[in-house]
């Protein structure tokens, strides 16, 4: 109905947003009828969300018109930001930012570089940045999960780890099963995403491509390609991150320094 009223895509988008906002406001009024007050939060969230996403869209318009090297700069900035966010899960561990930055850069970076070279990701910024950002974001989440899980397991099993060290085990050996469970646990969301693809959900990328007029079968295949790349990037990130944090959990004299509270160092 709306498409017939507007020639301009931006005006059409504004009208569509208006309809969606009215729907959200109707829900707010329904809740108010039941004396559930969501007015303030709803209005703030709607206004903020709309402004933020329009800002992102506007920036993307500027960026997509820029030279090719801006893609690399943008992705590098995303990786740095992702590293800082994931590092919060390893707060207190020496080199936490370096660990997460390296894990995400190696995982997402390797897959982006390889897939761009292979022609799976288009070099054009309109493809490289959105697809690259998906790989970076998922690597960030995987890194955060892996670091959090490894740290939690080590802190909860200090006695067993030190019992292993006291029996002459190498540090790597003493935490081997926690490395395994950290990587496995962090990959569960990616594995489940692959498993449920098309059955539980139709991803936004495929929906967007179909809306833009792409062949639905090609859109479906490419969506699978992206999810598979996400899986690969996340897997590399998990392995690299956990191996790096493992090396920070012990002193040069093979003593466990990663403990609940803060790392133990003598003075």
């Amino acid at each position: 109905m709306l498409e017939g009223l507007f020639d301009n895509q931006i005006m059409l988008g504004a009208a569509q947003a208006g309809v969606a906002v009215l729907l959200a406001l109707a829900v707010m009024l329904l809740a108010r009828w039941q004396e559930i007050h969501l007015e303030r939060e709803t209005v703030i969230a709607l206004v903020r969300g709309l402004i933020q996403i329009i800002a992102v869209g506007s920036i993307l318009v500027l960026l997509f018109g820029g030279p090719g090297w801006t893609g690399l700069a943008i992705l590098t900035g995303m990786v740095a930001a992702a590293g800082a966010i994931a590092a919060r899960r390893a707060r207190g561990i020496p080199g936490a930012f370096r660990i997460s930055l390296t894990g995400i850069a190696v995982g997402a970076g390797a897959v982006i570089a390889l897939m761009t070279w292979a022609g799976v990701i288009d070099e054009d910024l309109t493809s490289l940045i959105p697809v690259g950002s998906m790989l970076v974001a998922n690597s960030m989440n995987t890194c955060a999960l892996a670091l959090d899980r490894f740290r939690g397991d080590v802190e909860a099993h200090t006695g067993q780890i030190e019992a292993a060290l006291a029996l002459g085990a190498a540090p790597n050996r003493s935490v081997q099963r926690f490395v395994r469970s950290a990587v496995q646990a962090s990959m569960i969301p990616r594995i489940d995403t692959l498993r449920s693809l098309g059955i539980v959900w139709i991803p936004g990328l495929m929906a967007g491509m179909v809306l833009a007029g792409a062949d639905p079968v090609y859109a479906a295949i490419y969506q699978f390609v992206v999810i598979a790349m996400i899986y690969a990037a996340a897997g590399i990130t998990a392995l690299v991150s956990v191996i790096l944090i493992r090396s920070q959990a012990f002193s040069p004299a093979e003593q466990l320094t990663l403990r609940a509270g803060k790392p133990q160092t003598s003075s």
Partner: protein
Amino acid sequence: MSMDTGLDQQTSSTAALRTENLTRIVDDKRLVDGVSVEIGWGETLAVVGPSGAGKSSFLRLLNRLDEPSSGTVYLEGRDYRDIPPRELRRIVGMVMQQPFLFPGTVEENLRFGPRQRGEDLEREQLEALLEKVNLPGYLERDVSRLSGGEAQRVSLARTLANRPRILLLDEPTSALDEESRRDVEELIAQIIDLEKLTCVIVTHDMKQAERMSKRVMVMEKGKKVRIGPVEEVLASSQR
């Protein structure tokens, strides 16, 4: 005040372990403060003191599970910082207050230590270890099914599988019920005697110290305050 008796004038060359001003400071707190002591081969030294005295902290320094802030430990005259940590911990075994068995079977636990050196024990050797700790036929048992006393005995067997020359015991019976405590204590005493092990045992139980050792070191606030034959130290602490 530190009270040394004549028996402590052992020469460094005969000492299994010698600590020299051993100190550990964490967050400005002196957990162990300048402790110097010698333990001869075949001797059992009990370390006693009130809770928070630094006994366990001192013990953990002896196999370098923790790093001294200053001072060092000599193993048979050799500075232990010159010994690879894994080799040191094979020679200086430790039984902790809690067994901390690894998930799996008793057999897997016993095999763990030797496997770190690429050594695979024969089944007969494993069974002999279990005989020593009065747990014959327990090889296939899942460790989650063991009682507290049984688990602590498996922990002892696991440490003995490494053939240590020195044994560190950190309150090995305090987490057990009364009956298991007596059984495990007797077992440990028998094994120390049979294997002619050198032993350092931390205990808050003075009577246990009296039963298991001839020499005792009293610690308070991280410091060594008294050391000597157990009867003399006990008598002086009662004055």
